């Protein structure tokens, strides 16, 4: 790997920038690997990176049915925050936020993590009580979160309409200053480049068609479109397709896959300094560095793998955005897209060993997987390397759906999140 630096950039300028090597050259799969990761999104590539960088396991292959970063890694709204109510969730998501800090330096790749703050608006008395409870719970867990008055919200985010006659009056807000955004593609690319530099193979356009198990039940490899590839351990990080992959190993999962839509406007000059979320009307908005407003909301209603959703969901989202930010009523929307998110019954992820020896899973992130990318990747790598979960992801096991110890963030946030 040729490092990005001022000096290298300067030197390459005399060379027509022809000296930069390919970040992830196409490879033919080897006959066998120590670890195979299924799914080359941010989570899967990150896990491969940490396996190599932290645990010295470099005989690793990441298999992807489409192209690198072409699933939910490229289909989200890039919001980063860790203001979750329950202790388990706060620790999990804050682990990720801590890793976002310094990720660009670690990867020598600019992931454009911007701590512009995530402001969650309160529109009614219930919101105020719920958000203040979140703030206190967060502070007990060492997660920054503070209460802003209506006027302070307006000062922090000038496009807000705080008139008391507004359809959704702003009664205050909860602000996590460490929250913000990052560049989604860069995260996948940065991890891919870092992993390949340490010896990891990335095989794209190669769907996994089966998981082969030995006589003792343990995994011995995967069947793919490019033939059988042996593996001692397999990590599944396949987002919306996780149910299908796990069924190949004979496991039924507590997951349902839904389209989650997002959309961007035409690019405009910098107008929106932070991320604003409103749980009550359920919409969120930020402005990318390109200038587009990035807008999202809840999932579509029904199970689907179509990677597109219904128009009336977008209409509902934009109606809410226009009520809170009348300044945007004449913006034109450029693109919409849908990602397929795998949702668990308690809206908390599953990051655990499975009943099949050698098979590990990272799934169920639902509508909030992007923010967790470095944390999930690190913990999946830890779980695979040690054949045991880290203390942070131990509660996010499969057993909780049997013993009832759910981490019910669905009830805590009152929306999918």
């Amino acid at each position: 790997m040729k490092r990005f630096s001022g000096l290298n950039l300067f030197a390459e300028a005399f060379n027509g920038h022809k000296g930069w090597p390919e970040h992830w050259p196409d490879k033919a799969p080897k006959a066998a690997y120590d670890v195979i990761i299924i799914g080359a999104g941010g989570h899967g590539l990150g896990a491969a990176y940490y396996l190599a960088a932290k645990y010295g396991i470099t005989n690793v292959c990441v298999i992807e049915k489409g192209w690198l970063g072409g699933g939910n890694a490229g289909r989200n709204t890039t919001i980063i925050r860790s203001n979750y109510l329950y202790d388990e969730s706060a620790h999990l998501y804050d682990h990720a936020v801590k890793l976002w800090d310094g990720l660009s330096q670690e990867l020598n790749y600019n992931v454009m993590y911007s701590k512009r703050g995530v402001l969650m608006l309160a529109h009614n008395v219930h919101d105020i009580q719920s958000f203040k409870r979140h703030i206190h719970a967060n502070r007990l867990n060492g997660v920054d979160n503070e209460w802003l008055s209506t006027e302070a919200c307006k000062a922090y985010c000038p496009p807000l309409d705080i008139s008391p006659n507004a359809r959704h009056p702003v009664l205050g807000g909860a602000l996590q200053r460490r929250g913000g955004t990052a560049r989604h593609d860069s995260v996948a690319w940065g991890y891919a480049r870092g992993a390949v530099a340490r010896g990891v193979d990335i095989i794209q356009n190669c769907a996994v068609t089966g998981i082969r198990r030995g006589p003792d039940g343990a995994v011995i490899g995967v069947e793919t479109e490019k033939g059988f590839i042996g593996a001692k351990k397999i990590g599944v990080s396949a987002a919306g397709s996780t149910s299908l992959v796990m069924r190949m190993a004979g496991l039924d999962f507590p997951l349902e896959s839904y389209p989650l839509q997002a959309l961007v406007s035409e690019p405009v000059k910098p107008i929106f300094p932070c991320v604003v979320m409103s749980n009550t009307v359920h919409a969120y908005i930020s402005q990318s560095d390109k200038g587009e407003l990035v807008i999202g909301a809840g999932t579509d209603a029904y199970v689907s793998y179509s990677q597109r959703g219904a128009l009336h969901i977008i209409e509902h989202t934009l109606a809410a955005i226009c009520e809170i930010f009348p300044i945007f009523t004449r913006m034109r929307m450029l693109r919409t897209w849908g990602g397929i998110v795998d949702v668990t019954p308690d809206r908390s992820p599953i990051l655990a060993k499975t009943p099949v020896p050698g098979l590990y899973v990272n799934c169920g992130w639902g509508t909030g997987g992007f923010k967790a990318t470095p944390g999930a990747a690190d913990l999946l790598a830890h779980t695979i390397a040690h054949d045991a979960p880290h203390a942070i992801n131990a509660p996010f096991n499969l057993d909780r759906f049997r013993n009832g110890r759910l981490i019910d963030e669905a009830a805590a946030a009152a929306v999918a999140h």
Partner: protein
Amino acid sequence: MILIHCPYCEEDRPEVEFTYGGEAHIARPLDPGALDDRQWETYLYIRRNPRGAHAERWRHAHGCARFFNAVRDTVTDRFEVTYKTGEPRPAGDTK
């Protein structure tokens, strides 16, 4: 927006008139006390989540307000058939 055929109203109506009710044909246990934890887990949480034909419940909330069942392809979102509650899942849609 997709059109959904309500088997009671016998009309194709827009999706916004309906609400989704999750996977169909999950019968509530007749003797709940006899179930062990694994069976409860399966009943409450495990879902087929197929890529292809999916039998699911819908409710014509802004019409006749009745629940019915449908088989829909989860890749194309195309409805293959809708049928009344209590009727068995049509054969040939079990891929």
